[in-house]
């Protein structure tokens, strides 16, 4: 069976794609020769429909490749297709989309996690050489990687170019990657990192040999265990599995110590206010004129734009536009938006201080294993948001993180989260590979 036939079979069983390539085309050769790369739907691929999981972008056909996609092609990769996601990344379970809702390969009654759900599902079940391009704003790589039992890397903010990404929140969005193993994910990270003339926020720091880091022993690595990440709301079974992983790092000679990040509990509110404020400005451009959903040109421009936007955006997108617009309005801006940005500074200071004493932090990626769809349907929006309590702080600070499979609870995969200092991807990969190997 060909790779494309296999991809269609995966899609049929697990609903992981919004689009499967018509042909696998690779030019040139390099580090990704023979590898099929799937791309999250919010990252543009030339000639493949790219909707970011939203009806408002229905039919949009990018005339160019995102920089990360172009870098993969230069190394010999073929693009496999576009993987499903929550609309614009607005979700934790990949259920907020009018397109495919992916099923967890370990139990199809459970969520794959989100928002990069399709990417994690394809990574978990692909029986051919495959790597996934994913994207995180507040945990959208780590969460599905944890729920599906794969490795998901979110790099330092600015390590990878965002050119060609359909933005959610510009100060938070990071394009990252997934693989079955730490070494696989590290390989793709090394390909997609680095400067880009189209994105002035990309960091020009040298790119380490991430693959080589995946083979180094953990001996001597200073590992901090933040006590705030094992508290209330974190399932005991998940905690136990992650402690087991930390113990195995210690057995390999890592120097493990308890640390504290006191502003952790405030990061969720700070994150959501900032993310929604930025999202509400980014989503202002969808108005049915240049791309995506169009309606017949009727009424005044206010009436036309409102009609397109009301028809095109889903429930969660509307909620976030309203919240984000509110948080930026005169009279509320200081209390919400600016306050959130000041608290973000506090969260960043937490990380900077703790990384003076440790190289990496180890914690559970998610407070629970993948929930069932019937459980998700019962959740109020605020309860959805609270599922992100462990992933938002490092995302808010822009430090790198990787979720690595660490064991099981209730028969479902549990991810251990390794977080590192700015541009500390090397140590982070080294620690994650040690957890994986043990």
């Amino acid at each position: 069976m060909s790779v494309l036939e296999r991809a269609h079979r995966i899609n049929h069983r697990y609903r992981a794609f919004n689009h499967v390539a018509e042909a696998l085309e690779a030019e040139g050769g390099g580090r990704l020769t023979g590898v099929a790369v799937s791309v999250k739907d919010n990252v543009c691929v030339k000639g493949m429909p790219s909707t970011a999981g939203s009806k408002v972008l229905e039919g949009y056909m990018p005339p160019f490749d995102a920089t990360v996609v172009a870098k993969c092609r230069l190394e010999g990769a073929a693009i496999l297709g576009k993987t499903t996601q929550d609309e614009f990344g607005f979700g934790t379970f990949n259920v907020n989309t009018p397109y495919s809702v992916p099923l967890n390969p370990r139990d199809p009654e459970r969520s794959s996690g989100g928002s990069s759900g399709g990417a994690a599902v394809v990574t978990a079940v692909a029986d051919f050489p495959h790597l996934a391009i994913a994207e995180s704003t507040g945990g959208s790589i780590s969460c599905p990687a944890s729920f599906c039992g794969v490795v998901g890397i979110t790099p330092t903010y600015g390590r990878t170019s965002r050119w060609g990404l359909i933005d959610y929140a510009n100060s938070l969005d990071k394009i990252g990657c997934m693989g079955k193993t730490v070494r696989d994910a590290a390989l793709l990270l090394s390909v997609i990192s680095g400067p880009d003339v189209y994105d002035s926020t990309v960091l020009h720091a040298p790119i380490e040999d991430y693959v080589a880091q995946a083979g180094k022993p953990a001996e001597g690595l200073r590992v901090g265990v933040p006590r705030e990440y094992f508290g209330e709301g974190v399932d005991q079974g998940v905690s136990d599995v992650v402690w087991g992983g930390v113990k195995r790092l210690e057995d390999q000679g890592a120097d493990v110590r308890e640390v504290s990040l006191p502003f952790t509990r405030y990061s969720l509110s700070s994150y959501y206010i900032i993310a929604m404020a930025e999202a509400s400005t980014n989503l202002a451009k969808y108005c049915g004129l240049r791309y995506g959903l169009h309606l017949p040109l009727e009424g005044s421009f206010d009436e036309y734009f409102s009609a397109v936007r009301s028809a095109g955006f889903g429930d969660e997108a509307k909620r976030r536009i309203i919240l984000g617009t509110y948080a930026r309005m005169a009279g509320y801006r200081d209390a919400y938006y600016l306050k959130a940005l000041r608290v973000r500074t506090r969260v960043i200071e937490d990380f900077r201080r703790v990384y003076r004493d440790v190289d990496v932090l180890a914690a559970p990626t998610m407070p629970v294993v993948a929930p069932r769809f019937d459980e998700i349907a019962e959740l109020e929006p605020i309860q959805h948001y609270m599922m992100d309590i462990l992933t938002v702080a490092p995302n808010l600070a822009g430090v790198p993180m990787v979720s690595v499979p660490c064991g099981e609870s209730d028969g479902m995969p549990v991810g251990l989260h390794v977080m590192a200092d700015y541009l500390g991807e090397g140590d982070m990969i080294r620690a994650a590979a040690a957890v994986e190997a043990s």
Partner: protein
Amino acid sequence: MVRRVAEAARLSLTDEELERYEQQLKVILEAFRMLDEVDTEGVEPSFHPIELEDVLREDKASKWVWDPLANSMHKEDGYFRGPRIQ
């Protein structure tokens, strides 16, 4: 409140949506107010996670090769065609 914000954001909501969002937003905004506990006196806001450095390139013109009208259904004579401005 929600109706006013929705108008500013160019969303026309149904009565059901207005009522539901009003109730949900109350709960969410109430939860967000926990930020008031944090002393941020004299703390600068972080618009970005990392301090960005200016990046310069040679000031050289290059041609935009993509057709900006390619994805639009509303176009005429090489222009976008928009709704009436009144």
